[in-house]
């Protein structure tokens, strides 16, 4: 049993856990000492949310090997459902942290269900259909939430696609206001819960990947025909990875939304999906630590570049190109590889 714990993958996993924990401790101590700029302080929760988005998309793109271009759609579902939960539970659950956790769970569940519904027709097919369907899905979700009105009164929830058709009691509260999004949110998201969410997602992903189900998922990525021939039900395992990934994106969306006093559906558009995909590609497919670093760095970068004012996005693009070039430069790679745990294991034997 002890030997199992010492394998290369477990060592890499613990390195990732250690890195995230260390980062959390350092940032918390800086914040406690009062040395943190308000810019960075405001970015802590979005960083957590984007890190979770990146590792969850990495599960779909890197581990399962399917391209999803609508990951922000799941984030949107999680954000709206999670925030609604947080508002609805305001009088029931007193502790804001507990309410936040409830919101994350509800966001994850709803996003997971939506992921399942999207997956039913698409994951049976082979090829790039998932990319096309998720691309459309992201836009559909955006349109739905832009036209959805949801109110709460003593009779429960009222839902309509027209604001004058809610039939609420006069004291009822409008939660989702169509194109106005959700307003008047109590900002209950905090860095510690965000850190907790990252750790939970990492544990789930690593444990999943290093189990029977994870092996099957990676087998489908490597060779679908061979996976079928050894008796692996393809659709089931594709669905498992995709729904897990969608649920995590939902939790990330709820965390992200509860950090702002107001947000609209347009926040979670195609650009957000592509941004998360950039984190994943930049960090390396299947490399969770890479995704985490890329998500954190690229979330801070636009804020840190504010001093360049109108050249901000230009510098951002140049940094992206430089990082890609450096990552693929053989000389620099071999230099860094010396510090990394060798990936091939006992291949030279």
């Amino acid at each position, binding site marked *: *049993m002890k030997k*199992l714990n010492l*394998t*290369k993958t477990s060592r890499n996993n613990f390195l990732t856990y250690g890195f995230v924990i260390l980062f959390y401790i350092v940032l918390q101590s800086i914040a406690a000492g009062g040395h943190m700029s308000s810019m960075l302080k405001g970015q802590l929760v979005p960083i957590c949310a984007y890190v979770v988005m990146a590792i969850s998309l990495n599960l779909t793109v890197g581990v399962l090997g399917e391209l999803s271009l609508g990951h922000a759609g799941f984030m949107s579902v999680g954000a709206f459902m999670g925030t609604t939960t947080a508002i609805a539970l305001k009088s029931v659950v007193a502790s804001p942290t507990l309410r936040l956790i409830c919101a994350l769970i509800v966001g994850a569940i709803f996003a997971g269900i939506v992921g399942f519904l999207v997956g039913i027709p698409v994951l049976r097919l082979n090829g790039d259909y998932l990319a096309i369907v998720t691309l459309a899905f992201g836009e559909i979700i955006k349109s739905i939430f832009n036209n959805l009105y949801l109110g709460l009164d003593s009779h429960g929830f009222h839902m309509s696609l027209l604001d004058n058709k809610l039939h609420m009691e006069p004291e009822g509260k409008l939660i989702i206001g169509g194109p106005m999004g959700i307003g008047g949110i109590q900002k209950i998201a905090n860095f510690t819960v965000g850190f907790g969410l990252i750790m939970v997602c990492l544990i*789930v992903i690593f*444990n*999943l990947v*290093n*189990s*029977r*189900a*994870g*092996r*099957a998922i*990676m*087998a489908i*990525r*490597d*060779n679908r*025909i*061979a*996976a*079928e*021939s*050894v*008796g*692996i*039900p*393809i659709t089931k395992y594709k669905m*498992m990875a995709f729904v897990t990934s969608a649920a995590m994106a939902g939790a990330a969306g709820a965390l992200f939304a509860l950090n702002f006093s107001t947000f609209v559906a347009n926040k979670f558009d195609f650009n957000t999906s592509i941004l998360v995909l950039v984190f994943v590609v930049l960090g390396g497919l299947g490399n969770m630590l890479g995704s985490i670093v890329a998500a954190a760095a690229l979330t801070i970068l636009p804020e840190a570049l504010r001093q360049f004012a109108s050249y901000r996005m230009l510098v951002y693009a140049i940094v992206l190109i430089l990082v890609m070039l450096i990552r693929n430069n053989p000389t620099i790679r071999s230099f860094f590889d010396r510090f990394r745990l060798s990936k*091939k*294991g*006992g*291949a030279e*034997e």
Partner: protein
Amino acid sequence: MSEQKKQRPVTRMVPVQSKAIVPERDADKSPILECHHLGIDFGGLTAVNDFNLMVGRTEIAGLIGPNGAGKTTIFNLLTKVYQPTRGSILLDGADTSKMTTEQVNRAGIARTFQNIRLFNNLSVEDNVKLGLHNHIGYGMWGGVFRLPKYWKEEAHAHDSAMELLKIFDMEHLANAQAGSLPYGAQRRLEIVRALATNPSLLLLDEPAAGMNPSETAELMDNIVRIRDLFQIAVMLIEHDMNLVMGICEGICVLNFGQVIAKGSPDEIKSNPVVIEAYLGKKDKKKKKKEANDG
């Protein structure tokens, strides 16, 4: 059920006298595989037509024929990569017409591929464990929460995988990446992975392709040894006549999707129809040559 799983590799490895190869030994038992009037059309092209075959419980059967004769198509029909247009396949007496590839594997057919299909980015051990996939008894949550069952089943899977790798002396390669293995080892790993699914019929698609004579000789020993250890039927496609004539007990010759001959190696060797399919008609060639000369 778990009791059965636990003993799986041990119970199946019953040594049997390999010298006493008698095709009649399976005569009193029902055949493991029966094909009746099997056929498939691709559009207007009939790739296989009226294919009838029976394979005994512990027989090593050979499927030979010139390139494009439809040999791999038959393997694809047996494993349900293609659905047959006509006819039926009975595996151990059960009709497989409603089954998918993955269900056929669970019912007992495992295969290797002509162009090697391994899970290249995974380790050798993981490749074998994927073969054991349906014999590992914990689900997604057992893995995510690392329940006691996970540790027990994974440790057991590790032992089974190592035992299977031992057949080909590959246990020292367990942690290597499958894609980084030399060609011969990749072929062997594919056979180990197929065996891990606990088949009753093993399909080998050109197992000796690209091997030198000494490797082929070793492979021949190994195929016979596998049959003896696991008491399974083996059906193989091969162009190497030394291998086919050396270990196959029954041979079926295909040409243009039709069975042209069936029988023991000696019968096949002297069958004029087979010789014609492989080498062409004697008279025709001579006539052509004469015509050219003249």
